[in-house]
């Protein structure tokens, strides 16, 4: 860039010091996470409002979700947060082959995210099979439709929220896999060291938020019956 006021190749032209650049990047990602929380907030608020209006229906419908599958996925995501956090730590260290470790840790995170989506696929397939789907696809005439839900005429509200929340969360998981893949490519090019790790740290923070959203979703949808 035209600045030429510094020789550090990792430092963008409009920053004066690496510390200033790192702090700017971290503040930026925290603000982005703040807007993510507000983005999910309306769905959480809506879920709680309808739950307080129709507690019996919510109680019954929540029993149709598979707690073992949800719990398994919770463990999977918590493990993926661990591998991500370790990747951030390794990216910051000036030791030989630290980029290779970052690569493998990110691959593990990527794979765990994949496991999460596969389990989600089985959960969704089951609901498609029995007809507990959102909106106009909700089908009480399906022969395998849960008998306990037939007494409620508004059970499709619950599954509307279930699919909106888990679907949006799933999209965030996919986006996370995308940016983790990008970190893997950069780790392959040996880009990360104690002077240049902001990208890993920002992706890590994003991934922890995706994890955290699920940690709230799981009890609210599966456990609080």
């Amino acid at each position, binding site marked *: 860039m*035209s600045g030429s006021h510094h020789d550090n190749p990792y430092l963008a032209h*409009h920053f004066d010091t690496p510390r*200033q650049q790192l702090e700017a990047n971290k503040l930026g990602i925290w603000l982005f996470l703040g807007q993510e929380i507000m983005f999910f*907030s*309306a769905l959480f608020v809506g879920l709680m409002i309808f739950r307080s209006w129709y507690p019996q229906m919510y109680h019954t419908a929540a029993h149709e979700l598979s707690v073992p599958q949800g719990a398994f996925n919770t463990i999977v995501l918590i493990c993926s947060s661990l591998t991500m956090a370790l990747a951030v730590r390794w990216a910051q260290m000036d030791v030989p082959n630290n980029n290779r470790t970052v690569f493998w840790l990110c691959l593990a995170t990527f794979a765990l995210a994949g496991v999460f989506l596969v389990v989600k696929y089985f959960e969704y397939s089951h609901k498609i099979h029995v007809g507990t789907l959102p909106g106009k696809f909700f089908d009480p005439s399906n022969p395998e439709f849960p008998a306990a839900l037939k007494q409620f005429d508004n059970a*499709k*509200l619950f599954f509307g929220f279930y699919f*909106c929340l888990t679907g949006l969360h799933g999209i965030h998981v996919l986006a996370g896999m995308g940016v983790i893949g990008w970190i893997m490519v950069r780790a392959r090019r040996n880009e990360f060291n104690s002077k240049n790790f902001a990208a890993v740290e920002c992706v890590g923070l994003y991934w922890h938020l995706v994890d955290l959203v699920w940690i709230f979703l799981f009890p609210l949808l599966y456990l609080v019956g």
Partner: protein
Amino acid sequence: MSVAATASGRVPHYLEAGKGIKSWLVTLDHKRIGVMYLWSVLGAFLLGGLAAILVRTELWSTGQTIMDANAYNRMFTLHGAAMVFLFIIPSVPAALGNILLPIMLGAKDVAFPRLNLASYYIYLVGALFALAAIAFGGVDTGWTFYTPYSTSDKVANTAVMMTFAAFVLGFSSIFTGINFIVTVHKLRAPGITWFRMPLFVWAIYSTAILQVLATPVLAITLLLFMVERTFGIGIFDATIGGDPVLFQHFFWFYSHPAVYIMILPGMGIISELTSTFSRRPIFGYTAVAFSSVALAIFSFLVWGHHMFVSGQSEYASALFSFLTFFVALPSGVKMFNWLGTMYKGSISFASPNLYAMAFMFLFSIGGLTGIFLGALSTDVHLTDSYFVVAHFHYVMMGGTIFAFFGGIHYWWPKTFGVTYNEGLAKIAVALQFIGFNITFFSQFILGTRGMPRRYFNYPPDFEELHRISTIGSYIVFAGFLLTAWYLIASLRKEKNAGDNPWHSVALEWQTSSPPPVENFVETPKIKHGPYDYDHPDAAPLVLASASSNRKAS
């Protein structure tokens, strides 16, 4: 202020830094991105303005004048959606804010230049979807997209396209907000403490907080609307236990803060103009700075005042009404501090300051009528009437748009290095100010007499006031066409403005006009605030011009 002089051996300015269309399309320079935003939002202003003229023309007489009722409904929706989402929300922050914020902070650029460019392209994509929705038949829900009407079969599916456009435009706004907050926190030049920042920066900063925290709620609301409309999940559908009023809660949780996203940056401009053109330090700097933050906070707590007649509980309404009155406090703090700044100042009647004075007059009326509407018992009678229409046009147009054009005139020499025809500018301000009052004061009267908003037809008794309003709108339109003409004509002239035509001591005028690519030849070291007309370093410049002003007036 010790800023490297540019008089010796001129550094190429940002407009010269690259030639050709590609140098603009891939630019990361905040000033060029701001200029692209400026032309885009002005295009949207023209689109929304033409729709407004067609709406007013239709209302010239009772019954059908130039279009049928369906076309009329689409036309006022087009006017509202284009003005709110495509013009006013991005106007001051994304156009003027982008051009000026880093310069005012002595920074070389915003914190994330690529994100900045991305936000512009996201804006363009959103605008294209909005135009597509219009081309495929338009939307007749009003810009608020209220359920259950908007989810019913009576409304064409273009509503989904229009809400998707607003959804996309929201992310453009969020990215701008993130960029500005980080820039203010991390990229201030040495010597610019928080309380040496220009009040425009405080206003943009408060706005950015709203953009980041409120806009995502609109995004999820519109997303839920699209899902509801496409799949019928029932969240807004009362027939299966959902709640259409929940849409209003979610919508106004964003859209009330959005009112402050629209007005706060305008107030920031007025603070700059008032000090510069009164040649006095701003009165009550700290109070004005914190009043911006206070408005940002209060704006999150009053959304329910849009729903006094929507069936929310009386207790909620009473609480929202009470909280609404608090908004008047920081607004009043600003107004009296601006007046205090002008008091005994050496006031210049240059066109930017005429816009600022028009703002104070019109915003006072807009703000005070807002108090009427915040009072529960009054609101029940005036809600959804032309009184409301007149109120928010006094705030949004008399406030934000007059401030925006004041800012455009003030920073035009900074941005493009040229001066416009000051005589024509004064005529344009007069036309806009007089035409505006004719248009909308008559609507206050129509509203109190019972004319409901958004109606295609009305009783013959109202025809006279409607005609006065329509004539006023033509005068305003003529005023803006005149502004467009002399501003565009000025660009063909050679760069003759000089670096500091207004003799301001604020930092953005201490670099060349137009500024070089990284704004300052050397990172400036700031020793005084942006309004310190009485500071020894700034004194010689000020004394000279202040004395000449006194002679003139």
